[in-house]
């Protein structure tokens, strides 16, 4: 088993290339928070293959906040000094774009007295969590509205 869910933002423009056998390959850098606040945020290369790569190309751009789901793959590359550097790539299965500007939404205007009863009824429903909204693309029909 090899699974990762990683939240960050796109650090480069996604690039779409084709291998000689015609396989599409979308490649983009993802920056995510460092474990320690005194360190710069690390970046990881995210790669998506096949028809998914073609579908996502054009829908993602530099700076977009996303959650990426996939697996980790270790690549070994030679350094100029002859030693080898091991890096990790994230082979993506799925992107979950987060709503642009994930900052909290402004508070809604105070309801008029006539609307208060309706608002009270609405309030009894379980509140949507902060993360359910950006992920609604995936399971938009999960919440039954009654």
């Amino acid at each position, binding site marked *: *088993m*090899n*699974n*990762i*869910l*990683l*939240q*960050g933002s796109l650090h480069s423009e996604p690039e779409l290339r084709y291998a000689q056998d015609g396989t599409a390959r979308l490649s983009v850098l993802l920056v*995510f*928070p*460092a*474990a320690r606040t005194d*360190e710069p945020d*690390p970046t*990881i290369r995210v790669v998506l293959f096949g028809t998914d790569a073609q579908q996502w190309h054009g829908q993602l751009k530099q700076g977009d906040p996303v*959650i990426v789901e996939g697996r*980790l*793959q*270790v690549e070994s590359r030679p350094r100029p*000094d002859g030693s080898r*550097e*091991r*890096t*990790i790539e994230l082979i993506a299965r799925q992107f979950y774009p987060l709503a642009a500007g994930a900052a909290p939404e402004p508070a809604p205007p105070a309801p008029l007295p006539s609307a208060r009863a309706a608002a009270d009824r609405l309030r009894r429903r379980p509140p949507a969590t902060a993360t359910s909204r950006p992920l609604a693309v995936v399971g938009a029909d999960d919440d039954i509205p009654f």
Partner: protein
Amino acid sequence: MAQLNSVQLVGRAGRDPQMRTLESGTALCTLTLAVNRIRRRGEETPPDWFDLELRGRTAEIAGEYVRKGALIGVSGALVYSRWLDRTSREPRERPLIRVDRLELLGRAAAGDAAVDPD
């Protein structure tokens, strides 16, 4: 701000755990893990090797029970260890998995011990 960074791996320990104690007294355990890729038919792919770091009680459990070749499952976060190269003074970084949960899944299978490439 906590953001989603969640890794789950199942694989075999590449060597016996290396134990250290931090100045704070916390146990620190480092381990390598070989994780097989899903094989396509007729394709032999080498496993992916990951460096694991465990702390505290989880590190002590690993030190006591995990041996080279043991099948383990871990969950944790992807982090980067950073340092300056001693000779070139170039910044270096190394990805590792900071483990917060360890599952012991089985001992080394005979003739199936993982071999660490390092």
